[in-house]
């Protein structure tokens, strides 16, 4: 018990909890990796866009299987500026996931998880998983063909885990799937649960974790990030914060232009945008969102147990990174980070091509 208190006292030093330490006296290292310090702020800003646009969409969205699709159509076609708000929500959701991953990779490469920043890291990993949860739960809400069918596939992959577990635990994934699903098949209960998760549960957990994450960052400052000594620093307030806000401005401008000019739905074939029809045939081309391709394509090509082992193993390694990589050099961490980034980019951009090459299809 004493060691837990000691651990927390070191991570949350009361003597540093004042404006002088956390804002006025705080400095930020300046070096060739400094750009990475802005990625967390951009992710936070995109989360704020999600909150604001999500609240606006809530005024019109109807979370019932009969009305969900129509209400989304109504937002897009009838509500003044509705298509911009919906597009902004969709574009910034994808951008948020991109930046949260970039933030993860760069902080890992900069060994920002090292003592005394373990809590910052753990809260960040929690936020990463919640961000994926936002993506998965939000995907179902428009209740169109791709939304419902992709959710079905996602839930089936949870159930499939049962066959690889010991007999006494084999029923657990099915139970978990049923708890998430709420009924025999994806239906009203599923939509209600995903809606509540998406707009209440996950945001509340996010606010808590973001609070811990930011408080911890302010308390311990930015990590050094490079091997050797940092030769130059700049003041956090106002120099860094002004630059941070300027990147927010640039991101807002880009997001707004995308929302105004490039409908997110245009990237999907139009049959996937039809209202979900339980009695109709499933259209071709059902896939999860692009950020799940890193799991989706391996699942299509490799044994299920191997991919699940890699995914769950990866999450455990991430959670224990401050202890596993305690003595690992920044150079080695950078190589690992670059390896993951390359895998992610290749599988996301060329997953389909690789899949057809492996499977020998057209």
């Amino acid at each position, binding site marked *: 018990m004493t060691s837990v208190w000691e651990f927390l006292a070191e991570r949350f030093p009361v003597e540093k909890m004042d404006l002088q330490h956390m804002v*006025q006296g705080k400095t930020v290292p300046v070096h060739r990796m400094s750009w990475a310090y802005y990625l967390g702020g951009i992710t936070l800003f995109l989360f704020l866009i999600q909150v604001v646009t999500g609240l606006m969409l809530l005024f019109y969205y109807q979370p019932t299987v009969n009305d969900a699709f129509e209400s989304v159509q109504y937002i*897009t076609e009838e509500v003044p500026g509705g*298509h911009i708000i919906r597009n902004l929500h969709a574009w910034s959701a994808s951008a948020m996931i991109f930046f949260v991953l970039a933030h993860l990779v760069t902080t890992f490469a900069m060994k920002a998880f090292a003592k005394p920043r373990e809590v910052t890291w753990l809260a960040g990993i929690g936020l990463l998983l919640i961000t994926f949860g936002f993506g998965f739960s939000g995907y179902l809400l428009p209740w169109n063909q791709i939304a419902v069918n992709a959710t079905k596939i996602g839930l089936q992959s949870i159930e499939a885990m049962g066959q690889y577990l010991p007999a006494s635990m084999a029923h657990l994934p099915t139970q978990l799937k049923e708890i998430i699903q709420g009924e025999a098949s994806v239906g009203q209960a599923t939509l209600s649960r995903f809606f509540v998760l998406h707009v209440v549960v996950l945001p509340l957990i996010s606010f808590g974790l973001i609070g811990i994450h930011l408080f911890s960052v302010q308390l311990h400052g930015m990590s050094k990030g490079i091997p050797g000594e940092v030769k130059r620093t700049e*003041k956090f*307030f*106002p120099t860094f*914060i*002004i630059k941070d*806000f*300027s990147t927010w*401005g640039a991101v*807002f*401008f880009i997001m*707004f*232009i995308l929302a*105004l*000019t*490039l*409908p997110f*739905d*245009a*990237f999907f*074939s*139009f*049959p*996937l*945008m*039809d209202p979900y*029809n339980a*009695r*109709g*045939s499933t*259209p*071709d*081309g059902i896939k999860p969102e692009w950020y799940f391709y890193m799991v989706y394509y391996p699942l299509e090509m490799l044994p299920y147990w191997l991919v699940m082992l890699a995914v769950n193993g990866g999450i455990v390694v991430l959670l224990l990174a401050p202890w596993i990589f305690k003595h690992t050099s920044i150079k080695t961490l950078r190589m690992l980070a670059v390896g993951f980034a390359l895998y992610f980019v290749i599988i996301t951009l060329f997953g389909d091509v690789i899949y057809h090459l492996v499977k020998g299809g057209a």
Partner: protein
Amino acid sequence: MVRMICLLAFAATMLQAYPEFQKFSQTHSGRTVNCGMCHASPEGPDGLSFGQVGSLDSVQMELLKDARRAQQPGMDVNNPVLNPFGNKLVRVMGVRLLVDAKKDPAMLHFYLKDAGDMDGDGVTDAQEFLDGTNPDNRYHGDPLALFLTNVQHHLFEIVMIFMATGAGMFGLSNLLMAFAAGGEGKKRSNSV
């Protein structure tokens, strides 16, 4: 039930399937295309669901017959099993030409060349047929074409939002600098 079977049998003689166009559009674009490009129902005209022959009442059956008789281009049709784009095809080409074009589906693009852009998204219907996108949805089209069209269309808004964001950032930066300067001044006066 008997009435329904008779109705379906009658309707089947009235209908002609055009999967060649769907297949061509899909192959040309690499995108999935279904019957919903031209038909009211994404499952096609046969069946009992909304927009399918089995669901039509007597008035709608008359409209279907009228559309079937529109052999020549230029006739106004409102076939209930077709969507606005499907009806437009019949209007622009007529049934006879449409049946002929089944032999060479790429010809549809040629006939539609001057037929405009029914959803007003800036991508012509002919091009949307080639791209495998929905000609009747202004939020659906080739992403690059939509982007370029919309940039031109919303240039004023883009300039305004650029100026507004820039002005907002300028104001915020100066506000933060003023806070910082105020804090420094207070610290100095405290130390004196």
